[in-house]
Each structure stands twice: as structure tokens, then as C-alpha cells.
């Protein structure tokens, strides 16, 4: 048992340590430049809850590192619990999971061409004019 747990705990620690050097921005294509979201609102938006804004969440696929970071820093759940949550929502007809787009570049491209769409990106990425940063997790 010990031999199994030590690498796991160690890798969890490395994961947290590595994430401290990364940050996330949540970017939207919206006319309302005043929108600023709290972490809880961003979490709710990407977990399918209805915010009082006309925003459509777009997610990265499960194996993407930015998504892993977003899960840890903003949602506060592991990927397996997020998958469990969406299974619950889908088979009880409660909520629909966000559309998934393969890469950060492709997400940025999609947001640029689709008013109302919102996605999370690594903070290092250059954000084109016209898009609004709704939230940033430093």
C-alpha cells in the first residue's frame, strides 16, 4: 500500500507546485465590457449553471493541461469527478456539458467568431482586441 501512495502523494505535490507558476484567464466575446466574474461564477458557468448573462461556455478536452489547471484552480474538482458530474447531468436531463474544442488556439479562434462564447486559456496567450477578460486566476 505504501509503495502505491508515496508516488501518488508526491505527484500530487508536484502538480500543485507546478500550477503555482501558471495562471488562467477566462475570455469572452461580449459587447458588455463591464462583466467581471467571481471564481464561483466561472465555476458555475463551466458546470452548466445559468448565469444572468448570455454566455456560452467552451471547454478544452480532458487531457489538455490548461483544462487540468482550470479544474484544480477554478472548479476545484478532479477530472474524474467532473466526468461523473456530467454523466449525472446528462442522464437526468438537467444540464448540457460545454462544447469541447481541441486546442487553446482553436478556442481563441472560435471565441473570436462567435459572440457570447467564453473559454479559459493560459494567461500567457495573447488576447486579440475586442475580446474581454472576465476573470483571471493568478
Amino acid at each position, binding site marked *: 500500500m505504501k509503495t502505491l501512495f508515496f508516488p501518488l502523494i508526491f505527484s500530487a505535490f508536484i502538480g500543485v507546485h507546478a500550477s503555482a507558476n501558471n495562471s488562467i484567464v477566462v475570455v469572452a466575446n461580449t459587447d458588455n465590457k463591464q462583466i467581471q466574474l*467571481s471564481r464561483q461564477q466561472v465555476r458555475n458557468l463551466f458546470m452548466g449553471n445559468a448565469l444572468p448573462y448570455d454566455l456560452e461556455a467552451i471547454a478544452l478536452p480532458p487531457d489538455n493541461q490548461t483544462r487540468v489547471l482550470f479544474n484544480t484552480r477554478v472548479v*476545484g474538482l*478532479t*477530472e*474524474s469527478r467532473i*466526468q*461523473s458530474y456530467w*454523466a*449525472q447531468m446528462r442522464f437526468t*436531463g438537467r444540464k448540457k456539458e460545454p462544447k469541447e474544442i481541441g486546442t487553446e488556439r482553436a478556442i481563441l479562434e472560435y471565441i473570436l467568431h462567435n459572440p457570447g462564447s467564453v473559454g479559459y486559456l493560459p494567461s500567457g496567450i495573447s488576447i486579440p482586441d475586442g475580446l474581454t477578460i472576465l476573470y483571471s486566476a493568478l
Partner: protein
Amino acid sequence: MIIKLFQSTLIAICVSLTLTSVVYADDDGNVRFSGFARVVAGYIDEEYAEFNGYEDRVSLEQQSLFGMQADYQIIDNVSATAQVIGRTGDDNKSGIEWLYFTYAPTKALKLKLGRQRTPVFSYSDFSDVGFAYEWVSLPQQVYQQFLFPNFDGLHAQYEYVSKSTSLNFESYYGELDREFTYQGDSLDVKVSNMFGIVSTLGYESWTFRASFHQGDADVTQQELSAFSDILRNVGFTQSADSLSNEGVGRFYQLSAFYENVDYFFRSEVTRLRTELFLAPDSNGYFISGGMHFYPFSIYTSLSRDTNKYSADIAEIPIGVNAQLDQLALGYQQIVGQIGNNSTVSYSVGGRWDWKDNLAFKAQATLLKERDGYHGLFTARDEMFGGKAMFYQLALEWVF
């Protein structure tokens, strides 16, 4: 028939896994197919009793199941959904669990009309989707009810998200008419004027849920009804009434869940009050906690209940004549089959999410009847001491 269906679906699962392709039909179109399956192996380490169909040999045929769902987007805010489940166990028939239209006039409001699973407790409406929770079996002492599994009617859901909290309100109204098997007995369950209200509050990593559900139930068990009619015909109306399975059922529920990337805690308290002979007044709860080491999770659970049946009536005179003695004996035999009881279970288990849509689970549970009459086990021998270890392995899949 069901086993054959299950075998063929297992073959389909294996083929799909081999191809490692997911069976989404038409993701950009109007129809979307999805599904779930669970293969659950279990046995109890006890030769003198059975538990939910499990004996002291490994069985795959109690909880394994396969579900398919089709969603059809009719227009922008109207869709139709059907979900069919093929089961292996005896407790419920295979068939349509969900068949409804959804109308979403706004993002925050959603109305569903048709057959739906009843959201009685936190896990009630997705108890078949094992992928969605850690346990192999939901805590037995809380998730054992049979009165309100489904309803045909209207369900409304409204949500509100503020800076720091999310609020969700649900309400439904409908009826139910369905055959159901409970602990080996075939029951014809009719519930009218069924309604419920559910409120859920999300704050940081906490989720709190409180709900109330009520319905006018009429449960028929053939032999019991026949005997009750005989009693009534010969004038023993109190005895007949005491075996009645008609009346109001009320459920109350409170739960508090906490979860973050490292650990989780869940607790739920439930209370059922009925006027039915077959359904006792029950109080139950579970407490569970665990840790995540992605892609692994481990947990431990405690679950406990007390069940109180209505008292029997000593109305039929004994020693007057042979026919009355026989009637009195019959009555005593029936009421002797049930009795107040209290049970507990302690579980430890783990889950490994091998892929994003495929998980393995293991659970070991000590099941124990604490005091009073038989509460958990069936087919019991005199040698049986009222407790047994229950071991389970499961494969959970969604697609």
C-alpha cells in the same frame, strides 16, 4: 430474456472498447445517442442467508445493467429524450425509465413533461448510473425505498447564480402506475397526487439539499389483498385495515456534501412516513468521507436505519371454532413476517478512473441487523447470526 439482452450488450461493449471509438451518432445534428453500463459482481460471505439476491457465490446478475439514451433537439428550446434500461436483477423490470419533452423558455428555467425518475434523495434519479458516484452500491439504509421510483407528469427547474452561491429549485407533480419487485414480492404500485419540492444551495465546495415529497399510494400484493378481503368479508375490518396498503407516503430529506480536489465528505438524512402495512416508517442516514488521488479515490461509509411497522391487531378470537383459529393463525403469520428493526452497514471501497468514461470499483461492506426483527437479509437459516460481509467489484462505463 434479460440475461440474453445483457449478454448481447456485453458483446457490444467489448467490441466498442476494442475499437476504442465512442458511439456518438450525430453530434452536430439533432439526434444524440449516449448510454451507460455497469457490470457488478458480488457475493456475501455467509451461507445461511441472502442479501438483495446475493448468496455465498459470485453473481453478476443482481445489479449489472445497460442503459441507452436518445436526445432529439426538435427546435431551439424544445427537445425529446428517451432512456431505456435493460436490467439483470429481480428488483425492477427492464424498460423505459425516462421519456419526456423538455421546454427551456429561458436559460434558468426548464420544464420537463413525461415519464421521469423521481428526485427523492440526492442520488435517486441517477442511481442506475454507477459511473456518477464512488460507491458500488449506494448506502443501503437510505436508498431502499420503492414507493416513488418514477412519475408521469411535469417537472420544473429554476436556477439562480449569484457572485458567491448557486440556488436551484425543483418541483414536480404527477402519478405512477407500475409493477415492481421488492425483496422477491411482486407489487402493483399506484401513486396519485405525487408531488415534491427540492432546493439545492451551492456555496464554495459545499452543496446542501433539502426536499419533501408526497403521494397517495395504493400498493397491491396479490396474496395480501386476497387475505385482507376475506377478513373484511367476515367482519374483521380492523384486522383488514391493518393490512391495508393504501395511504399517504411522505419523504423528507436533508444532505450536505463537501468536495475538493483532495477529499470529500457527504452526509444525508432521510425520513419516510406512510400509512402502508408493507412500508414501514423509516429513519435513515449515511456519513461518508474519502480522498482523491487522481485517478484513484478511496472512501469509507457508515449507513444506518430504523424501521417501524404499524402494530398488529388482536381482533380475531382464538378457541371459538376451527375456522376462526385458522383465520387468526393466518393473520399472525402475515404480521409475523415483518417487524420493527434497525440495521447498519460499514463500507470501505475504492475507485479507479482508468479512462475518462470507464472506471473500476471495489467495495467491502459489513451488513448488520442491530436489533429487532429481520431487516436486511432474506432466505435465512436458523443458524444465521444477523450479520455478513458483502464484497463487490464493478466496471462502470458511460458513452
